[in-house]
């Protein structure tokens, strides 16, 4: 039935359900009541006004979205701001969609351009808008939009950030995912285990925004490799690396941001643990007994990385991360293995070195993120399939802006820093509330995979989740506040350390206040470094022009990442690894120093020495060596150096 006043409008409406219907004013009123909670009488009035506007326009065809825009304009006139927010439509301008479909996404180097990738970007755009409108408070959303803080992966608002996983889970329970059309029992052969692992990773990629890390890969694969020949083991290694590396061809078009954590030694916390082997059964041995197979597999993996892909190019994913514990140095053959992996650093630059000094143990999840395992986690090591960790969200603080606002006052600077961190904590509370809501929808909800409970608790162990506080541009904060960059004087460096110590204390204090685990992380986000520098040039131009790096004229500006020293300053690798390493003990979710090799291809002995000395003589948590490569986009040829 049509509304009385509508009978004389010969108007057709294209509705979002994909149909053309006759004009019916009551639909507006009904939707205003249902979606925005507007009272019946007011809803009728608004609908009436909208109808007049449309009638006066003389239009014959109108779309649902356009009607909604007109209704929103009316809501604004009536100052019904909250109602407008609930009623508004999320989406993108036609122009933007066209750009997105036709042009390469420059923001994420890991996403190839294609229909699947643009699907992902379109979805991300809408989810991001939704997150800022509905998940976070207006205060938090505004702080993000202004660039006081940066909420990472807003387009993935309905997933946790990253995860560290255990192959033991896949070995023990097979590939048995909720809603799967077919289920695999625990693997009998190494090759099948690899396939399970890759598919499980792909499934996890669907419910996490970022990195999918796998712990002690060579050790946990080892029970499947007994009695296999060198050639066969290398084949398994090849399958693992290539399959991971080539997942970008799957739906979504994004590589799995994956890490393979390797050990030459059997780390102390796994040595006495009962090993799980084919068919998910205990083999009757402990992991200590599989040292030889674990080492053979580690070496095979390094050989595969050395060869590179079909064109000899380095693999970007999965990243091999060698953990170094004190035990390494008493494990036979360590020197030769270190040389092998150091040669890989020199030739291809893949390897990351993670330093687990003293009694600490860590799981690395992405290039910078490594979780230190605490007492509880080490208890988990006895049942390693339970070793599943996650950081739910990452929020980065724009540090230079704090210095601009503090206007030279130390006290004000730390005060502002605390305020921003509280805001970041509020953002984490909101994200947790939202994710918990989704998890509560259970196995049939959007995060069903994270709800499967094969070992008496959900896959996603909420109580173990951490919340990351990232920092950007410490160097520029110090530079603006003191007039010197951190590498320019020990006073400036000490001031930088003081700021991070303050952040670390604030994490603890906020953790107690909110009952959540907040930890500092070095933000691994080049696009954030650009975004914040650009926003500051807009809103704090006089201040920011004094310290931003890059070229203001060309619009290519950035802040120095996290707690790094100026990347282009002439600081020797030794000093960089020592000085940057001074920050690392306060950054519990992992930190990294890049050693720039340029065109030079050092002998592996020199790299290995550097690694061992970094372990022995610094507090640096993790290093990687970066050679320069140029890859020809036409023929795929790779050359050393930048061309």
């Amino acid at each position, binding site marked *: 039935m049509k509304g009385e006043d509508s009978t004389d409008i010969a108007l057709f409406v294209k509705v979002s359900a994909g149909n053309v219907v006759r004009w019916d004013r009551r639909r507006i009123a009904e939707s205003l009541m249902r979606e925005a909670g507007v009272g019946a009488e007011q809803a009728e009035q608004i609908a009436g006004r909208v109808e007049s506007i449309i009638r006066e326009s003389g239009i014959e065809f109108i779309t649902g979205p356009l009607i909604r825009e007109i209704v929103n304009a009316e809501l604004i006139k009536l100052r019904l701001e909250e109602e407008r927010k609930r009623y508004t439509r999320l989406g993108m301008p036609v122009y933007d969609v066209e750009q997105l479909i036709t042009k390469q996404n420059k923001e994420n180097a890991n996403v190839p351009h294609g229909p699947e990738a643009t699907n992902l970007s379109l979805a991300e755009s809408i989810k991001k808008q939704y997150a800022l409108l509905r998940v976070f408070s207006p205060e938090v959303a505004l702080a993000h939009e202004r660039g006081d803080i940066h909420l990472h992966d807003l387009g993935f608002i309905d997933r946790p950030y990253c995860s560290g996983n255990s192959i033991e889970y896949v070995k023990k329970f097979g590939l048995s995912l909720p809603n799967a059309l077919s289920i695999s029992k625990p693997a009998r052969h190494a090759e099948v285990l690899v396939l399970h692992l890759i598919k499980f990773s792909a499934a996890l990629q669907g419910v996490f925004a970022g990195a999918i890390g796998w712990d002690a890969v060579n050790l946990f694969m080892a029970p499947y490799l007994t009695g296999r020949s060198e050639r066969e083991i290398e084949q398994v290694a090849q399958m693992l690396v290539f399959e991971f590396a080539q997942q970008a061809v799957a739906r979504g078009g994004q590589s799995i941001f994956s890490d393979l954590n390797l050990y030459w030694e059997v780390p102390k916390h796994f040595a006495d643990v009962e090993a799980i082997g084919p068919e998910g059964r205990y083999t009757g041995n402990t992991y200590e007994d599989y040292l030889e197979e674990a080492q053979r597999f580690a070496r095979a993996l390094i050989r595969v990385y050395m060869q590179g892909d079909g064109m000899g190019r380095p693999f970007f994913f999965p990243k091999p991360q060698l953990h170094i514990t004190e035990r390494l140095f008493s494990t036979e053959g360590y020197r030769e293995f270190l040389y092998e992996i150091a040669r890989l650093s020199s030739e291809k630059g893949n390897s990351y070195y993670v330093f687990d000094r003293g009694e600490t143990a860590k799981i690395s999840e992405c290039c910078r993120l490594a979780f230190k395992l605490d007492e509880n986690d080490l208890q988990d090591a006895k049942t390693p399939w339970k070793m599943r960790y996650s950081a739910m969200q990452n929020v980065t603080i724009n540090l230079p802006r704090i210095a601009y606002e503090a206007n030279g006052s130390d006290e004000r600077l730390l005060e502002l820093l605390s305020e921003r961190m509280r805001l970041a904590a509020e953002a984490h509370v909101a994200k947790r509330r939202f994710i918990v809501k989704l998890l509560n929808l259970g196995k049939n909800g959007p995060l069903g995979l994270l709800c499967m409970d094969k070992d008496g608790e959900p896959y996603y162990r909420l109580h173990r989740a951490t919340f990351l506080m990232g920092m950007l541009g410490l160097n520029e904060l110090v530079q603006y506040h003191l007039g010197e960059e951190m590498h320019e004087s020990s006073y400036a460096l000490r001031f930088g350390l003081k700021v991070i110590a303050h952040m670390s204390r604030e994490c603890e204090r906020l953790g107690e206040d909110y009952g959540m685990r907040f930890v500092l992380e070095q933000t691994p986000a080049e696009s954030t470094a650009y975004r914040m520098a650009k926003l500051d040039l807009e809103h704090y131009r006089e201040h920011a022009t004094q310290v931003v790096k890059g070229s203001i004229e060309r619009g290519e500006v950035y802040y120095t990442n996290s707690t790094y020293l100026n990347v282009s300053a002439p600081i*020797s*690798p*030794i*000093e960089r690894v020592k000085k940057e390493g001074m920050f690392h003990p306060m950054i519990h979710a992992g930190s990294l120093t890049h050693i720039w*090799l340029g*065109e*030079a*291809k*050092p*002998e592996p*002995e*020199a*790299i290995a*020495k*550097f690694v061992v*000395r970094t372990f*022995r*003589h610094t507090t640096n948590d993790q290093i990687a060596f970066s050679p320069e490569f140029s890859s020809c986009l036409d023929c795929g040829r790779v050359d*050393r*150096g930048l061309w």
Partner: protein
Amino acid sequence: MTLQRSEVSGVTIKGMVETSFVDWDGNIVATLFLPGCNFRCGFCFNAKLVLEHDTLDDVPISYVHSYLRSNSDFLDGVCITGGEPTLHSLEELCSLVKSTGLKVKLDTNGSSPRVLEELIDSRLVDFVAMDVKAPLREREYSKAAGVPVDLKAISESIELIAGEVEHEFRTTVVRGVHDRQSIREIAGTLERAGARRYVLQKFIPELAMSEELRRVKSMSDAEMDELVEVAAGYLPAKWRGR
């Protein structure tokens, strides 16, 4: 605690690479660049240090000393290079390095065997890398070095280094200047002197002192492999470069 040195006699330092992975195979070193050279090799990639060193700032010895002392936990040694370092009086500089517990590697063109002998005898250097520019024939060598060269001095240096100290001999291989035959001859000379290591270095045209040589294409990896094979017939050999 030793006092920090603010000067050493006989030397000015015109450049320093604080951490180098490539100047002494397998070692982490700091590299010091000394000015001036008595050769004018067209393929030299440190022309400024040879021809215009007066325009370069000095690196203060106090800085070098303090850097070496505070980073001796990472460094294996110091590479003294140039230019031609043996044109300077190196005793004090080498002693200074030794006082920080680090080893000394010296790069030389071999034109000053007496200087080398003294440094080696007094154990002030641990490793010597000597450039052999061409087969030891007057015309060829002088052409490669860009100046008349006293071949007797070169031979003496080869004998001395090969016999007395850890070492490597090296030749920067330039298309049109070197070929299989010249490498064969140099390797033969080195073998007869008892040398134990020979390194062929890829020429980097864009950095060459001679404008003419800047237009010469450097050897390919495969060509370098071939030349190493020739040299390896005489003594352990490898090539380096990008």
